[in-house]
């Protein structure tokens, strides 16, 4: 190969040797597709024979049962109201009798009971839905955390517990910088 003897410019050592590799890495990043040649093409999960035919039937049957249940509740709604009214009357009478002796308040519930209730009963709300329901302007960190947090404690926590850039919610562009 002819060398250009008039060239006064220099390049870092090994620049041309690994130029191709760096170029392909850059192209790969720009295509947004990392190299996945080392990964198996399938995950190896199997299913029972004719599973999808049978699951279709099970789901449809369950849905039919579900819609039937809804109709039957509507049909007997009046009876439920009557039964609920009687039950409410009974509970109120009992509560009145009890209130003569010991009054039970919300504070009487052990916090462990409340926690157990939330653990065992599905709220049916995602964290996004909870965030939408709770007005963050009305609460402060002191409402959730008992002790005041020092800045250093927060930094120590992040240092020990945040493993990924993703946890810090950085965008792809920020990550590339």
């Amino acid at each position: 190969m002819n060398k250009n003897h008039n060239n006064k410019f220099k390049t870092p050592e090994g620049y041309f040797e690994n130029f191709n590799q760096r170029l392909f890495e850059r192209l790969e990043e720009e295509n947004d597709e990392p190299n996945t040649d080392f990964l198996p093409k399938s995950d190896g999960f199997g299913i029972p024979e004719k599973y999808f035919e049978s699951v279709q039937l099970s789901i449809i049957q369950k849905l039919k049962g579900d819609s039937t249940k809804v109709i039957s509740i509507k049909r007997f709604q009046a009876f439920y109201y009557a039964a609920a009214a009687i039950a409410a009357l009974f509970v109120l009478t009992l509560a009145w009798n009890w209130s003569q002796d010991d009054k039970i308040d919300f504070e009487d519930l052990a916090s462990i009971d409340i926690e157990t209730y939330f653990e065992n009963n599905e709220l049916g709300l995602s964290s996004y839905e909870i965030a939408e329901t709770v007005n963050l302007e009305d609460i402060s960190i002191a409402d959730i955390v008992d002790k005041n947090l020092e800045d250093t404690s927060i930094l120590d926590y992040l240092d020990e517990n945040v493993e990924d850039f993703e946890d810090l919610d950085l965008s792809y562009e920020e990550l590339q910088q």
Partner: protein
Amino acid sequence: MIAEEQFVLALKDKSTQAQSFEVLVNTYKERLYWHIRRIVLNHDDADDVLQNTFIKVFRSIEGFKGESKLYSWMYRIATNEALTFLKQKSRKLGISDNELQESLVENLESDVYFEGDAIQLKLQKALTKLPEKQKLVFNMKYFQEMKYEEISEVLETSVGGLKASYHLAVKKLQTYLTASD
């Protein structure tokens, strides 16, 4: 889009609901099953979660406002159902989420519905090391071949954030798989 709007109306209309739901189940059962299976790993659990997902879709269709596409709404329900299922399972067993993941992968070795070889098993082990979100993104992109825009609608995350998650997931998997060869 108009076709989807009409389909959603048919799902809400009592006179066409049953027939429309059959079409819905038939169209999405396989895709949702594989999405759920890759989260819960075990076939019987995936079967339970899939059925619960469709029941939840059926019960909630009245409230579906069409703000997102129907499939992404269903994927979101399936993802929540699967993750909730795992959380309840770990609580019942009294173990942490990570311990549950490890035991689920260990059980794959004797699972009659896991036909994977050593490298596929190793990949499942490697996936337990990833944060939940990265694992979801990886499975949806690599195995389900979903577009970033589709994943973005399901996970309600920006496309840029998803690309970063996918790149990081693949890099971590590569490190894990090649380091322990």
